[in-house]
């Protein structure tokens, strides 16, 4: 763990950018009473250390209200990590977490319809060698979700077909 510890200024910057990532360095600097160069340097470091990532959050109602689905998987020990990597590649899957407890792997997906849920859970995950049990539950209502807290996973480039305007921040080891 060679990551530097965040100080008050870093936390203030994260707070400002968490509300609006497009505020200029100049405005943040004026607001926090430091120089623009300081802000630029801090943001660069926060990105390089994978503490923050700038992204656009979409409102689900503009995407045809996709269904959020939790898929709990029990697997043969020794196969868990390999399975998790495979599941992470499946269409619609947004999060894959290796867990200890009620499941071995928890996958979370966003699906346009129930048919695609079935397709991933029953036709793609269940037949994988090493999978013992798959349990699907569909979210009927979200009472709280804070999309500003995330896991910044740098080693998994996502399938964006977007023209990249800047090189991605330097990749760091995953291991925290």
């Amino acid at each position, binding site marked *: 763990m060679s990551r530097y510890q*965040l100080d008050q200024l870093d*936390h203030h910057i*994260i707070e400002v950018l*968490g509300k*609006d*990532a*497009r505020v200029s360095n100049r405005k943040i600097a004026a607001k926090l009473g430091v120089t623009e160069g300081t802000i630029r340097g801090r*943001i660069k470091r926060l990105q390089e250390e994978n503490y*923050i990532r*700038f*992204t*656009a*959050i*979409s*409102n689900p*109602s*503009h*995407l*045809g*209200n996709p269904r959020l689905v*939790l898929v709990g998987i029990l697997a043969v020990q020794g196969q868990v*990590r390999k399975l*998790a990597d495979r599941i*992470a590649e499946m269409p619609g899957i*947004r*999060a894959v*977490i*290796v*867990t*200890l*407890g*009620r*499941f071995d792997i*928890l996958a979370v997906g966003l699906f346009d319809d129930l048919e695609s849920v079935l397709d991933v859970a029953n036709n793609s995950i269940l037949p994988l060698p090493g999978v013992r049990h798959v349990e*699907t*539950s*569909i*979210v*009927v*209502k*979200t*009472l*709280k*979700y804070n*999309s*500003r*807290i*995330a*896991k*910044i*996973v740098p080693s*998994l480039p*996502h399938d*964006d*077909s*977007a*023209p*990249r*305007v800047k090189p*991605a921040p330097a990749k760091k080891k995953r291991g925290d």
Partner: protein
Amino acid sequence: MATDSTMLDPSKFDDIDRKILSILKSDGRATNQEIARALKIAAATVSARIRRMEEAKAIRVVAAADFSAFGFNVLLSIGVEVQNRPAEAVAEDLAALSEVFGCHLVTGAKDIDLLVALHDFSDLSDFLLNKIGKIHGIRSLSPAIAVDIVKYDFDVSVLK
């Protein structure tokens, strides 16, 4: 759900909007000039399009910060079974807890699924005994402790 009259109809997103959004998804802090150059359009168009999408609450461009940036080292998914009380009422009480960053009513074996972030395991007893323990109507808790996050890519959230 999508009946709010202030909401922009997704069909009103044109190709330029979608291209801008696609760039913002991978780099939310790309400047208007950089986006304009990549798409060969005017910077003023980029800025107007982003403002329009944001004002329509279709998108919000933000910095998502890592769990570790908030000092959270323990992440749990907890399945909750409810009894003698409507699941939604229990879920509302659970959602009010600061440690809970995700609270969903679900179908299936459990009634509620919680995502909980804690600073460390020593916070667990206070969270379980003093906070969850005071909420009525919980029959059982089935936790799973996150050991390794292989993928975490949520770019969808109800925007207020």
